[in-house]
């Protein structure tokens, strides 16, 4: 199975990268762009065939390594 882990900075944690992207977009004339937040997408190939177990594995990987839960939140999608 494939699991996709999306990691984002938590609400309230300053995202200077997102801010810089927003400024650059405004500079390009995309004046209607409001807040921009940037994160990471990590794709995992898993040997597991059961979706629930695959999700549990990916969530454990996210907690232990893929995300730093002091500053980041994550979402797992399994396909």
């Amino acid at each position, binding site marked *: 199975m494939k699991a996709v882990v999306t990691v984002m900075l938590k609400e309230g944690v*300053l995202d*200077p*990268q997102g801010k*810089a992207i927003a400024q650059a977009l405004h500079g390009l004339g995309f004046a209607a762009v409001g807040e921009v937040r940037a994160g990471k997408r990590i794709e995992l190939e898993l040997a597991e065939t059961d979706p629930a177990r695959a999700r549990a594995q990916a969530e454990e990987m996210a907690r232990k*390594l*893929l995300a*730093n839960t*002091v*500053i980041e939140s994550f979402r797992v999608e399994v396909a």
Partner: protein
Amino acid sequence: MRAAIIVFPGINRERDLAIALERSTGRAPRMVWHKETDLAGIDLIAIPGGFSYGDYLRCGAMAAQSPVMGAIRAHAARGGHILGVCNGFQILTEAGLLPGALLRNAALRFLSMDCHLRVERADTDFTRHYQRGEVFRAPLAHGDGNYFADEATLDRLEGEGRVAFRYTTPMGETTPGANRNGSARNIAGIYSENLRILGLMPHPEDLVDPLMGGTDGKPLFDSIAALAA
């Protein structure tokens, strides 16, 4: 005083740290490759600055999972001393040995300049050769040094006297301008609960000889040298 310097792939400040430690302790530190797992007989573990594992995923995230970390955790559990500078500080937070995290600098720029640090307490094993409230100069060289922790953690750190150094003006004022990377409450370095682990972003090891332009960082290493015979 037997010191070990942990060398991860991508680290680049290990020699600076070795020079500073040897100068104060009179003994060359043992260089320990990240795949080693035996740190028996070591008094101080020093984790240098650099870009371990290319800063992949997050600064320090990969190093925090490397083979040597088991021995570092065991050393911490024994009450051993650990000094983490720059990437070393990031590694200690990623490993959970110090609270909080280091975010991208608020202005997004890599900072390569001197800063001024105020010594918040001079009664720890790392600061006995400074005075409380003393301000000293230290080079900064990082892209991700913006200290972050939730308000409750920050309050606890302050309450327990675990803020080691703050970014200030040369006069010791904690202004926003002196806080180049945007760190919470101007925090440049913090201690563990038992005050035996110190992590800081600036590089005191790069000011330990007049030839380097100053000796502002030397008292930190002189304090360490006094730890054990």
